């Protein structure tokens, strides 16, 4: 059986497909160039870090304390000074014209009130157009002011009313200090999240593009009939078409993994075998999607245009670039059907957290199931067309 498979027809068919792909220069380029470019661009350009926000300053008080607070704000790294404004109005115009991202207004009598024992309200204006930046900047601001309060209280230069324990008796008189500790990525490197997500994205998207181009080629050239006239069965033709693509795309997986390790220095804490297993399934999945699309089209142009319909939902419902938890609730269950989502979970958990197979098996299983369904669907369509 095996000798028959690999000795005769099958070997000849495989030889033909490999030779065809070997001669296709554009295919070889499209296997290396776009994935590299995408991985680098996504990894470097999609950076969630919120720092160096331009802070406009309105200081009506001009005292030692007000300058000290401004220094604390601008030294935090989250904000940098974008110059002084004369009034709250000009600051407002500055924000609306996009010259500054945030503003702080220190009132007249700022230091006097502090020494008199009155609480002072400091107005902080944030451009909340970008909700994420605003949420993080809000956290920063409260953190900086909180620390500043503590430092001032400890220094003892303020009015005694701030340090005495309140008049209302309570049974809990202390305060809780929360100590955050960042696990797995203490430097909070943004690219680790994006790159591990993009990996699956580019396997599926490029895989399907390459596959649909390869599948539609024979039809465009009108040589399908010749292939059908040979004694080879449709099953053999399909396997011979898929096998070389699979081998080539697995090469792309190795290349992308190297890139991830060398350029982005992502720690490989877990078992790489799990990642490669997931990647191989992803590649098959991509081929299946591409083959499926190719059966609906007659030309390379149509096949490529079809991908415009499939890629947006595939990529946006994947959690590859933004966390799934941030999607609307009705959308989140849909991601279970998405192979990119499962592969993203696998790479992130295995590479960054060192999770093992006994935790990741549901994702592998789901990925395998999706691959199987898509693959049999596309083979069925393909066979029907050949027959």
């Amino acid at each position, binding site marked *: 059986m095996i000798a028959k498979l690999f000795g005769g027809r099958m070997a000849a068919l495989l030889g033909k497909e490999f030779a065809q792909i070997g001669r296709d220069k554009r295919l070889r380029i499209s296997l290396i160039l776009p994935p590299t470019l995408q991985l680098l661009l996504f990894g470097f350009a999609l950076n969630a870090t919120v720092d160096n926000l331009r802070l406009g300053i309105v200081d009506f008080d001009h005292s030692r304390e007000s300058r000290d607070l401004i220094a604390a704000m601008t030294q935090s790294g989250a904000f940098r000074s974008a110059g002084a404004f004369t009034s709250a109005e000009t600051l407002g115009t500055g924000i609306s014209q996009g010259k500054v991202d945030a503003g702080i207004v220190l009132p007249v009598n700022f230091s006097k009130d502090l020494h008199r*024992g009155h*609480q002072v309200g400091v107005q*902080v204006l944030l451009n*909340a157009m970008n909700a994420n930046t605003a949420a993080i900047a809000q*956290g920063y601001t409260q953190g900086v002011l909180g620390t500043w309060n503590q430092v001032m209280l400890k220094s003892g230069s303020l009015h005694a009313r701030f340090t005495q324990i309140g008049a209302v008796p309570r049974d809990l008189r202390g305060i*809780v200090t929360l100590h955050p500790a960042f696990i797995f990525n203490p430097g909070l490197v943004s690219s680790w999240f994006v790159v591990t997500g993009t990996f699956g994205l580019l396997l599926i998207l490029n895989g399907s593009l390459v596959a649909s181009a390869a599948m539609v080629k024979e039809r465009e050239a009108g040589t399908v009939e010749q292939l059908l006239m040979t004694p080879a069965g449709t099953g053999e033709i399909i396997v011979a078409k898929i096998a070389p693509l699979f081998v080539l795309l697995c090469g792309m997986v190795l290349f992308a993994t190297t890139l991830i390790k060398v350029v982005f220095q992502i720690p490989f804490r877990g078992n790489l075998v799990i990642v490669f297993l997931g990647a191989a399934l992803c590649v098959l999945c991509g081929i299946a999607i591409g083959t499926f699309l190719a059966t609906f089209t007659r030309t390379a142009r149509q096949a490529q245009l079809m991908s415009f319909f499939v890629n947006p939902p595939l990529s946006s419902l994947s959690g590859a670039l933004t966390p799934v938890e941030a999607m609307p609730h009705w959308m989140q269950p849909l991601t279970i059907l998405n192979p990119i989502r499962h592969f993203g979970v696998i790479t992130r958990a295995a590479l960054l*957290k060192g999770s093992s197979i006994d935790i990741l098996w549901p994702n592998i299983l789901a990925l395998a199931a999706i691959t199987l369904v898509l693959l049999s669907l596309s083979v069925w369509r393909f066979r029907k067309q050949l027959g």
Partner: protein
Amino acid sequence: MRRILAQARKELIQITRDKLALTLALVLPIALLMLLGSSISLSVTELPLVVQDLDNSAASRSLLEAFRNSLTFHVVAWPVNKPPMEAFTANEARAALIIDRGFGRALARGGDAQAQILIDASDSNTAKLIQGYSSQIVNAWNSTAGGAQRLLPVKALIRLWYNPGRVTKKFYGPGIFVLGLSMFPPLLAALAMSREGEQQTLLQVYVSSIPAHQFLLGKILAFMVIGFAEWVIMLGLLFTYFGLSFAGDPTPFFVASILYFFCVATYGTMIGAAIPSQAAAIQAVALGGFLLVFLLSGLIFPVENIPPGLRWISNFVWGRYYMEIVRDALLEGGGWAAMWFNVLVIGIIGGVFFLLSWRRMRRMQLSI
């Protein structure tokens, strides 16, 4: 002028005949805006939080209650004797709150009580949000239940401008709007132009009396019309589903939109003229229309976050300027004073594209 209009009419007729192209032009922008506009978000809610209360006092339970009541977290049961790290590797929690023994007693004495929050930072942005939210919860608890009835010297009065509810789709909606306009009109334009090259119908144009610039303008006009149609549909969606409205003087937005239609239609035509193969032209447009606009124009994250080695490219990305204008018109309302430069740049980039495609056409004419 008559010839330009005739050329534009011919293009539009060709598009209405091609069903695939027509859906691409009119249905896909809506689907894209709805799908991406609502799915791209970084505001996480209901993050699973593991709690290990080793103190189990009234005080610690009250603090946990505060975490339980927040929208950001939902508390997951976790045995006290199991290390919380395992919850992270098992993807069952994003953070773990640990309250040590003696927590309640320290609070009652009036001292500082310690609590630790371990945060899974494999997603750094979410980790930062968790840090901010959890400290806000603790601060609020300190001042209501704990001993922070002590008067704090300085209190932050934070005002969130333009998007006080921090609604993410109000920010990403306009971004996807620009992405759609940067993708589909040039895609169709490139297809139409490269088809003329592929099917050699360009020769017919050369033997006709129409000069290169009129031929180009006719084509561009047709795809500007397509762009305008998409603009109307998507703007309608922004005003209804995304709950946006004009924040200030919309005239810079209108002027910039017309220039932007010209810019993207010309970009597509230029690509189509340069690459006389439809399949390759699609890829080139996908690179410029999708990848550059999606990554280098501040759609998801601010342009300032891109490392300087890449950031300079964004100065040439036309979508970036238009995105700033759209967001200004719908959220900030800075008007002409803030946006005149962006309008100018879009016009210049469109002009450059036109010159390039015109030169290309002229050269092709000479070579035949």
